């Protein structure tokens, strides 16, 4: 039998003694990985002796070692320079590559974690609204500094608004399971401007000394409060249901179904009921405060959530052949 030397790509020179060669090859079948820049096609990194069961995540860590400025979260590794990003969980030997794998790299730019963004963008409205509620100096005329509104609906609105954002903060910390760890850094500026800006705009008018309470008085406020609370519970129920779909640490996607909780029965008609309930909450708040900026915020939020819901609905349909046909993205039968 001939001695066989296997090169570090598992490329063997041809010889007899095939059975022994294959056994050796199977044991030492390491991959070579070369990473090229997606735009310039320059060779950025060459990794040899990569295990066949290495994941893209591990390859990203290895690449990070040679290029410390590109931490794994900002690496996009693709098979095709213009193709889709590979997932961290993808295993090298299951990819359509030869023993020398060529990947293309794209820098996603500075990244920030979803949790950080959510916490920042939700803390702003919570704090800002309270500043307007307590009529901190320099906002309104100085004779109103630290005074309190004489309308009880203003106190109720403050409680509802604060409750809503407190709920969001707690959900971010304890409930949500994020499929992506990070997003581009510039998003935090965009998102915070949106949330903080609107919160300040709303809070200014609701807590204004010249605020006008709702036309239909107590009836209107009561109905609004019921709607608001109902949708807050609903929204929370959906978040819990979605969390339970996904085991801890996993990124799997499954079709959500109604559970024993009646608030989740809306899954029969809607793909993204968390957005439906969110819309309902803000409609309630608009009704409660009868404030045009709140209506504006509700409208803009609704448009954005509809875009998201339609995208999510479409990806559900693509991924699951047996997706329930009765469901609409966000509004039953309508949208």
């Amino acid at each position, binding site marked *: 039998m001939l001695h066989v030397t296997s090169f570090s790509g598992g490329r063997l020179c041809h010889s007899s003694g095939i059975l022994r060669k294959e056994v050796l090859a199977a044991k030492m079948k390491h991959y070579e990985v070369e990473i090229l820049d997606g735009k310039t096609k320059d060779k950025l990194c060459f990794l040899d002796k990569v295990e066949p069961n290495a994941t893209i995540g591990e390859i990203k860590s290895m690449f990070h070692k040679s290029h410390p400025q590109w931490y794994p979260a900002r690496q996009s590794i693709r098979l095709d320079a213009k193709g889709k990003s590979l997932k961290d969980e993808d295993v090298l030997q299951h990819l359509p590559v030869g023993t020398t794998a060529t990947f293309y790299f794209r820098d996603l730019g500075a990244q920030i974690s979803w949790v950080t963004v959510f916490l920042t963008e939700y803390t702003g409205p919570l704090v800002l609204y309270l500043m307007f509620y307590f009529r901190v100096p320099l906002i309104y005329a100085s004779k109103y500094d630290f005074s309190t509104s004489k309308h009880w609906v203003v106190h109720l609105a403050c409680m509802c608004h604060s409750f809503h954002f407190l709920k969001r903060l707690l959900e971010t910390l304890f409930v949500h399971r994020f499929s992506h760890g990070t997003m581009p850094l510039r998003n935090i500026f965009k998102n915070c401007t949106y949330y903080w800006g609107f919160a300040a705009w709303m809070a200014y*008018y*609701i807590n204004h000394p010249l*605020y*006008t309470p709702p036309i239909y008085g107590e009836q209107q406020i009561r109905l609004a409060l019921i709607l608001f609370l109902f949708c807050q519970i609903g929204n929370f129920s959906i978040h819990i249901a979605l969390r339970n779909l996904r085991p801890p640490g996993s990124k799997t996607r499954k079709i959500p179904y109604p559970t024993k909780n009646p608030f989740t029965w809306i899954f029969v008609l809607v793909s993204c009921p968390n957005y439906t309930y969110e819309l309902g909450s803000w409609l309630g708040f608009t009704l409660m*405060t009868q*404030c*045009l*900026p709140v209506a504006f915020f509700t409208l803009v939020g609704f448009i954005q959530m509809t875009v998201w819901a339609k995208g999510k609905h*479409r990806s559900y349909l693509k991924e699951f052949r047996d997706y329930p046909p009765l469901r609409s993205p966000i509004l039953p039968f309508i949208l």
Partner: protein
Amino acid sequence: MASSEEDGTVEEKENNNKRRTKSALATAWLTFYNIAMTAGWLVLAIAMMRFYIQKGTHKGLYRSIARTLKFFQTFALVEVGHCAIGIIRTSVIVTGVQVCSRIFMVWFITNSIRQIQNEESVILFLVVWTMTEITRYSYYTFNLLHHLPYFIKWARYNLFIVLYPLGVIGELMTIYAALPFVRRSGIYSMRLPNKYNVSFDYYYCLIIVMLSYIPLFPQLFFHMLRQRRRVLHGEVIVEKDD
């Protein structure tokens, strides 16, 4: 947006035919539109010259051409539609910003704030607009007819260097002149208390509009400069969807 990919040469041929008839219809409409707009702005130009020659003053000139101006300038909104449905390959946003700034000037400044209608700055931007639009629409018309005289191309991509800044000066001076009248009359403004719990001060809105010229004007101007380099000197500039 994910688009479904379906093969089928029969469907492809049908689609190609649809595209061909659509583009023939689009070309016909665009040709008509650009001829009509060229004619409209020519009418405006002539009316303005006639007024000045006959009366010897610019006072009252705006009133005499106001209706024609409002009609043709407002009709330019369809250009946003052209970009949106894709028969014109320009960004909806760029076109939208340009048309909206014109609509804003015409309807929310000169139309509603009577006292500034006889300002010289109004005549300035009217003259600039007229010259720019006649050049622009005749350029498009000749382009569509595939018979573009070089002087029109030259005019379109050179006159703006002077006209654009002059137009901005005219517009800004007009808005500035309007400020005291806006303050006094409280037009388009809403104060507290009211049942919508909102307030709006048109005066500060106008100040913000004036300030917004600072970032917006250079962007639009350099967009035109890049177009100029590409069209006149054949420089290949990598531009996606603008």
